[in-house]
């Protein structure tokens, strides 16, 4: 079987990732692509450095696809995330979802990107002209409190 979730330092191919979910039962495919943006809150990014805890990150991506397939049983999902140094406009993440009907493809994709930002151990460091900083935009962190899906 082809891989459903992976982390790589190689460039990501939109066509390749998307084609993995195209199938006879699906009439809708939604592909979300996260790219490196030049300006964030008026500050100019030169490039990003992504780092990961790869073994755990791939497990967490798999977990997200399982959560999605529970919520949208007809969905087929592939997620790929790139790490290492990424330049402006480089593709950082691709989420491809196919479903029989279009509404589910949008909703399931939306779910995936939000979950990635919550539970997958990947970090980015912004490099600006005048400095650098590790970004943490996770919402639910409280010291020592595991995420909700961990205590269900």
């Amino acid at each position: 079987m082809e891989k459903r979730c992976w982390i790589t330092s190689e460039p990501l191919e939109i066509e390749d990732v998307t084609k993995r979910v195209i199938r006879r039962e699906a009439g809708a495919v939604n592909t979300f692509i996260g790219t490196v943006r030049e300006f964030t809150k008026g500050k100019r990014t030169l490039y990003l450095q992504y780092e990961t805890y790869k073994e755990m990150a791939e497990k967490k991506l798999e977990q997200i696809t399982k959560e999605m397939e529970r919520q949208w049983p007809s969905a087929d999902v592939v997620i790929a995330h790139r790490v290492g140094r990424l330049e402006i406009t480089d593709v950082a993440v691709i989420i491809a979802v196919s479903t029989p009907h279009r509404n589910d493809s949008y909703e399931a994709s939306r779910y995936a990107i939000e979950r990635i930002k919550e539970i997958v151990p990947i970090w980015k460091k912004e490099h600006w002209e005048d400095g650098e900083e590790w970004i943490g935009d996770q919402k639910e962190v409280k010291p020592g409190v595991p995420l909700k899906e961990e205590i269900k």
Partner: protein
Amino acid sequence: MNTLLFFAGLKEAIGTDEVRLAAAGMTLGEVKEKVRSEYSLDQVNNCMMAVNEEFAPEDTTITEGDTIAFIPPVSGG
């Protein structure tokens, strides 16, 4: 023995991505507090903790051979 893993900003603050520690019998919370005080690093408080590649609550008891990861706020996507 146990392996402690550090990532991103925490790795840079500690100066290494890996530390060996005999932590069997300790709770995850105790390991966290030990690292926080030893390195005087309050940013440890913002970390989630994982044992063997799964998030775990702080009252988890560490077993010989467990790998403990300090997960700073993530920013993938």
